[in-house]
């Protein structure tokens, strides 16, 4: 699978960066874009997240895997400011992020998507996209009243949005309501919209969930493309094949903790991962942590 694939230069670099790293939980990376220390989140008596240490290597595709209820989405929520942690701190590109509100994180280059896609259904696809652009002059009400002030910027944004839509193969839908898109198209739209913020770190929460196999392949390509353009990708996924296929590094969570780290091939040979994964899957509930 992976080995036979044509690998880009950036990808090779990214993989080489991990060559020296020991495959153990919480190991330090050479050039972390995200550095997490002692983050904890409790719900009542349950510890949803308890991460002692996690580095995400810059310019890599890192997968975050684990059984249902392992705390992956909760960790995402905490790291992106959507859920306040009970303890811990984390730095994004050297900047302390604890207590920074969610919207500020996005403007600083750390953007996320959601497990259940959040297309703004009654806005058109192109409006959805344009919303993503940061630092818009016309988003201040006093400028909004004078179209001349924001028209120039608006057309630049629209141009960029159209390019991204074309790249994500939904350009033909630009004037439709987002509510009319199919599930897979919504995933694409959400990813493209996140890119409008011009992020350095893209955090994708189950980008492949509910997407048909053909589209999965093209989503894979898009994610690789992000890395090749210099972005860092951290994504949550269930599908081990897909993880194998595109990730440079894999982080495994179980019961709120990181239990293993390593390259995809190292992880697939890791006994404790297989046990945590398969063991927990037997007691799988229908109730996935979504909030």
């Amino acid at each position, binding site marked *: 699978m992976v080995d036979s694939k044509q690998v880009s230069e950036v990808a090779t670099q990214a993989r080489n960066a991990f060559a020296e790293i020991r495959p153990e939980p919480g190991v330090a990376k050479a050039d972390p874009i995200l550095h997490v220390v002692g983050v904890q989140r409790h719900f009542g008596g349950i510890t949803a997240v308890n991460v002692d240490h996690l580095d995400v290597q810059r310019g890599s595709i890192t997968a975050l895997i684990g059984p249902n209820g392992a705390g992956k989405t909760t960790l995402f929520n905490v790291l992106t400011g959507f859920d306040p942690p009970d303890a811990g701190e984390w730095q994004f590109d050297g900047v302390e992020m604890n207590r920074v509100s969610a*919207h*500020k994180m996005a403007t600083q280059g750390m953007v*996320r998507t959601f497990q259940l896609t*959040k297309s703004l*259904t*009654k806005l058109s696809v192109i409006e959805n996209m344009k919303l993503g652009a940061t630092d818009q*002059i016309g988003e201040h*009400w006093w*400028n909004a009243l004078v179209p001349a002030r924001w028209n120039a910027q608006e057309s630049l944004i629209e141009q960029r949005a159209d390019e991204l839509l074309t790249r994500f193969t939904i350009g033909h839908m630009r004037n439709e309501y987002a509510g009319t898109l199919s599930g897979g198209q919504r995933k694409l739209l959400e990813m493209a919209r996140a890119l409008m913020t011009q992020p350095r770190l893209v955090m994708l929460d189950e980008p492949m969930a509910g997407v048909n196999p053909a589209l999965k392949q093209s989503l894979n390509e898009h994610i690789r493309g992000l890395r090749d353009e210099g972005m860092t990708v951290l994504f949550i996924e269930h599908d081990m094949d897909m993880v194998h296929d595109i990730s440079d590094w894999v982080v495994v969570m179980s019961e709120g903790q990181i239990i293993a780290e390593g390259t995809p091939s190292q992880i697939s040979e890791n006994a404790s991962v297989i046990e945590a994964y398969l063991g927990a899957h037997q007691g799988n509930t229908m109730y996935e942590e979504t909030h």
Partner: protein
Amino acid sequence: MDWIRIIENTFRAFAGVDAAYFALAAIGLNVQFGYTGLLNFGQAAFMACGAYGLGLTSQYFDISFWWGIPIAMALVIILALLVGIPTLRLRADYLAIVTIAAAELVRLVVRSVKFKRIFGGSDGINTFSNEFRALNPFQPSAQYGIWPFRYNGYTMFTLLVGWSLVAVVSVLVWLLIRSPWGRVVKAIREDEDAVRSLGKNIYSYKMQSLIIGGFCGMLSGMVFALDRGSVQPDNYSRDVTFYILTALVLGGLARVMGSIVGPMMFWGLYVFSDNFLRQLVQSAPLRIGGVTIIQSTQVGAVNYMLVGLGLIILMSKRPQGVFGNRNEMALDGR
């Protein structure tokens, strides 16, 4: 039955001052509820801010009535911060609960004996509009207009001011809504988390929307107060907000024309129903088989029953309004 009279009154109400001040308040509610999804159930309190802003100039400060505008704006901002700061981070219900409570409290405070010296108590204030009346270009007692739209000179003046404000405010709101600012607030209505993840400070946008809508309410209260020449606390009761909401939904949420046409239709229908019923029972209560169905003291209650019924049916069947596009609403279950 005097049909000519009923039709005349209906048409006059259609374009009347009541429709104009309802339209201003409805434009505000539309910004808040229709576009941003904020459920402000206390628009009456924002209207009271406008009316009492004017009233205070004569009752308390004894200064020119023009100062009423900055005073009212300050009151609106204070009220918006008071209700917005605790609730705008929470689910939509909390804003509704707090605004309805705040509106009720505002009414109690302005009509209280305790603050009578400032707000005039339950008698209200009626000494502030002389400067405004002096600006009237029409002969106050003369009749103007063509049938059925005939009004006296003073009403003509407030109509002119009221509808001009409606026009100006609508254009401003239209500009806001078609701008990137409008895009952000519409997106907040759809899904706050998505907007937050894209780097927008939704708390700030909601507050802006609340205040902008509040200013529209303020203008509405001013037009109403100037037309009546008095400020009465009981004109700003909780139900006024709900009638305006009904008028807005009648015209259609989230469309600029809806918040103008809705109030016109609301008042047209209301006055028609009121006049019709009153004429019906004018001489004797309506009886069917010896049972009194309706008598003249009950006409008001019947009218408002119909308003309530209208709101139920419109909101559950046609939130897009009478002329709205069903498809847009079908995209989700809001």
